[in-house]
């Protein structure tokens, strides 16, 4: 543990306002990231478990044919795959545009 605990060596100062401000800013950043992460996680859970619960409890609905060769089940399967792409893309776009600059600013303030 020694090797990488020393990495966090920049301890927040215990006296004076800067450390207090920095701590609040860090809490805000952390809460913001957690909020985004939880919203997107919930979205993924809703999409996937809608699919799974339909498989579990309404197999015949997923067997409905939309057109020749395309059942609702297969269509939803493709939609789940597309949803994982869209949700990861949304997160990466948010993190790179919003989260990353805010973290960088804090990092520089901490120096």
């Amino acid at each position, binding site marked *: *543990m*020694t*090797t*990488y605990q*020393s*990495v*966090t060596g920049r*301890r*927040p100062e215990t006296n004076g306002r800067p450390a207090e401000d920095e*701590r609040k800013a*860090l*809490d805000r*950043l*952390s809460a913001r*990231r*957690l909020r*985004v*992460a*939880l919203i*997107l*996680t919930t979205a*993924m859970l809703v999409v*996937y*478990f809608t*699919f*799974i*619960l339909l*498989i*579990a*409890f309404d*197999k*015949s609905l*997923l*067997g409905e*044919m939309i*057109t*020749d*060769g*395309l*059942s609702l*089940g*297969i269509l939803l*399967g*493709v939609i*789940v*795959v597309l949803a*994982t*792409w869209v*949700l*990861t*893309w949304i*997160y*990466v776009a948010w*993190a*790179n545009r919003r989260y*990353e600059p805010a*973290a960088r600013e*804090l*990092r520089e303030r*901490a120096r």
Partner: protein
Amino acid sequence: MTPFAAIGDPSAIAIFFFCLFILVALVISYWAARRTKTTEQFYAAGHQISGFQNGMALAGDYMSAASFLGIAGLVALYGFDGLIYSIGFLVGWPIVLFLIAEPLRNLGKYTFADVVAYRLKQTPVRMAAAVGTLSVVIFYLIAQMVGAGVLITLMFDIDYALAVAIVGTVMLVLILFGGMIATTWVQIVKAALLLGGALALALWVLSYFSWNPLELFDSAAADNGEAVLAPGDQVVTGSWDAVSLGLALMFGTAGLPHILMRFYTVPDAKAARSSVNWATFFIGGFYLLTFVLGFGAMALVGRAPIEAVDKGGNAAALLLAEEVAGSAFFGFIAAVAFATILAVVAGLTLAGAAALSHDVWVNVVRHGEAPEREQLRVARIATFLMGGLAIVLGIALQGQNVAYMVGLAFAIAASSNFPALLMALFWRGFTTAGAVASIVVGAVSALVLIYFSPTIQVDVLGHADAPFPLGNPALVSMPLAFAVGIVVSLLRPEPAARARFIEAERQIHLGAPAHPPRVRPAAAPARGR
């Protein structure tokens, strides 16, 4: 052309591609050996892998032969039911991205136990996490090794034990000499081959159906009944069975030690983020292709010839390759399947070795004070032990039904590793006792429940009934692990762990200081600035 003549009748082309890939793997490990001088390079490729490269390597680490051959086979035999796996194996990746990848990269060093143990007492947490890691790794390894033996025997008509020994030996040479750098590049090469091969095969199939997947599905349904496009009862028998399997696949992905370990190979959290984004793209694309490959095999090869070669359908993709594109392409796809297995067992073995040497030896036995040379030596010894164990178990379990072991590995990962990791990252009040209890209860309950489930009692032991109704235990064992972790932490708070939460948060968001671009052996300990 009789489609199954080539199986067990090795074509010269298949053997050529097979040997070529082994040669490529050996060249990579020779090249990587010269760049593997420190423990950090051995376990984390010196943090020099880019986001895109790591995305490919994650895909290569994750897409096992079970995904490629197994899912294509399930779809070919049962239609839609096989797709439950395709989709389940994908949906964990966004969870990894949103909750795990970046904090893990910034907080840990080589293993996920680094992260769980960060604020807690080292010895108990590391021991528990090592048990969680090793049980996942060993069950997953057994499934892969037995699968490899069967597959190579099927493709090249060589002795089963010899086949397992070849895979194990190539894998050991790869890791012992080239460590994570060699493993990463073999995984990248494998991902490129697998994605390229699957795409080529899918396009070939679609060319028979005027490039329209719906026409393919329609043709498969015309020959085998429309029921193949709807959920049946082949993969999941009951309703809650489907939910439990879904949970295990989704959250198991976020607790697989060999996947988590890959996030340490990139320079920073941003690269970790982009690597999951790429991995999700590649893996999603690959599983979309399994729709086409599976139904393609059903429509073009037919269920009976596939079942004639292997009852589980594992030969479907290979037979399809031969049917549409001839024996040269069959040889190529067979070698890709071998590359697939090699890359996955290498990742697993390295993760198991890291748990043994970094968690147990360096941090528990030596209290984190082992000199660099000793760490590297122990890492190689641990690799040798894990690889040897994989070969021995692979040979010992010949002919056993091990298909359930992948599901079991995911269930343990979801119940043992994921809850502890999540609570360690996001809950201030998580304690040492809570972590240990959660990991142990998660692993033990998953093991016990699967023993009493139909998976073992009915499928393996041949009993008529099973005391526990679900095929996969995650629906019970994962919530149980969370509950135990929370209750134990609340009963006995640990003020020291709570106090260090702010420090952990700081490192999660602001990161460890940037790593020097090129680490020379002498400069390795200087991780700080």
